[in-house]
């Protein structure tokens, strides 16, 4: 039966479709610590945490091809900008707000294109942890800045629970050694809460159990941007064997 085109209904259906597909995504926990900024997640196949520019990195949940499109667009913009002007002119605010967000919004609102299935977390390193920035970019082009820590997960409810855990567990700027165990539990909470909707709390033991289960099939991935380093590149992925110590006490 033919019905008149309903703009609002169309958007709602698209949003629902995307949310359903994002729900199973492995959460990403971002924490700013004393000597850097980190993004922690798990992966089953390809890489999950990506270097975008000298002081900018990205991790996302969603369709692999869409994440790839977003990643390459961000890298292209950042390098063009960094070369034409200077590396100091490449900021997360401009990459997300100017280069990416309008394109996402356009794809989401256009009934003739497939929308991006993606929710992305950007982390930008500064000279002090207080000035570090996170940006969460949504499939509809909406973006939200955050400081100290940030979470993307399958549902917004799951993100809220993980953020609550981070707020309670981290007072002040943590060290890397302190931040990792907190991030691991936050990951478990976000994952568990996304899979079982309508929970208003997840006990830590359950979160740990969820992570243990996940790690039987998946691998932990932690990407860093280091504040003080002798290396030319600030970005690096932590080798898995270096994370084993943290997993033993899970």
């Amino acid at each position, binding site marked *: 039966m033919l019905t008149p085109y309903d703009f609002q209904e169309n958007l709602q259906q698209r949003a629902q479709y995307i949310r359903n597909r994002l729900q199973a995504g492995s959460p990403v926990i971002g924490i700013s610590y004393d000597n850097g900024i980190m993004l922690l997640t798990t992966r089953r196949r390809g890489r999950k945490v990506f270097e975008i520019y000298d002081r900018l990195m990205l991790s996302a949940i969603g369709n692999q091809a869409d994440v790839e499109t977003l990643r390459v667009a961000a890298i292209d913009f950042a390098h063009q900008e960094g070369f034409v002007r200077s590396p100091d002119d490449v900021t997360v605010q401009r990459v997300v707000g100017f280069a990416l967000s309008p394109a996402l919004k356009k794809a989401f609102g256009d009934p003739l294109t497939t929308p991006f299935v993606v929710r992305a977390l950007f982390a930008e390193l500064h000279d002090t942890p207080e000035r570090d920035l996170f940006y969460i970019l949504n499939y509809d082009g909406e973006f939200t800045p955050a400081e100290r820590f940030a979470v993307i997960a399958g549902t917004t409810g799951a993100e809220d629970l993980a953020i609550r855990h981070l707020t309670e567990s981290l007072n002040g700027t943590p060290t890397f050694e302190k931040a990792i165990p907190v991030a691991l539990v936050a990951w478990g909470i976000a994952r568990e809460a996304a899979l079982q909707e309508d929970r208003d709390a997840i006990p830590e033991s359950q979160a740990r159990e969820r992570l243990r289960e996940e790690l039987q099939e998946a691998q932990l991935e932690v990407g860093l941007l280091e504040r003080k380093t002798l290396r*030319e590149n600030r970005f690096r992925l932590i080798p898995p064997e270096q994370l084993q110590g943290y997993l033993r006490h899970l």
Partner: protein
Amino acid sequence: MESLQGDFARLLHRWQAQTGMTLPLFATPGKGEGRLLTPPAPTPLDKPPLLEVHGTTVIALKFKGGVLNVGDRRATAANAVMYDRADKIIPLDDYTLIAIAGAYGRAMEVVRYLRHAFKYYARSQLQPMSLEGKLQEVSRVLAANLPNALSGIGLFIPILSAYDPNQDAGRIFFYDASGARFETPDYGAAGSGAERIRGVFDYIAKTKGAFSERPLDEVLREAILLLDIAADLDAATGGIDKVMPTARYVNREGVFEVPEATLRELVQSLRGG
């Protein structure tokens, strides 16, 4: 030769017109000796020469496990010292160092391009560019710069030092202005002071063994000494006393800078202090 003669004839003509003098008879233009007797040309008829800033001496030495680069800090324009804090040894990424001699402005622009090109490749392709790929890219920018170099501005000569993960060793490459690439087994140097100290490299390598077999701290000492000799023999080389030279090295772990305090101690001990 054709153009040398042409240049000479023009100079001679102008000189004669301005001074009313003629050259001594034994100075035969075009046979070489005439050039020696040419008086410095007064230039009111010329455009003032473009004062281009040039970096001077850079040295690359292998050590056990990597490559060390040392450069003085001087940049000159004709016989003026323009800058005494120039950094001519620049990391391109975590495995590659470039040392620059010659036109400073053009070289810095090219370095900026190469840094972005290598990093862009690694970030977008999720794997670093191969050493061969990086070397080709340097050749390409030099070849593209050739028209500039021929017109008399923007000529620079880079030395590329890299850690090669396939061979687990440091490697040194040098180029000519047209982009031809050569690999050198143990050491390399470029810039105004380089040619003057060429024999010293040989002497050290033949008396104390190849640089590539010696530890970093020994090789660093030799490099500073070489730079000191270059400064003694070449007026355009800044040397090691007024401002500390730049020293960076690359090995399996990445690119590192030798701290200024270490260099200062080394210079003091070389000076017998």
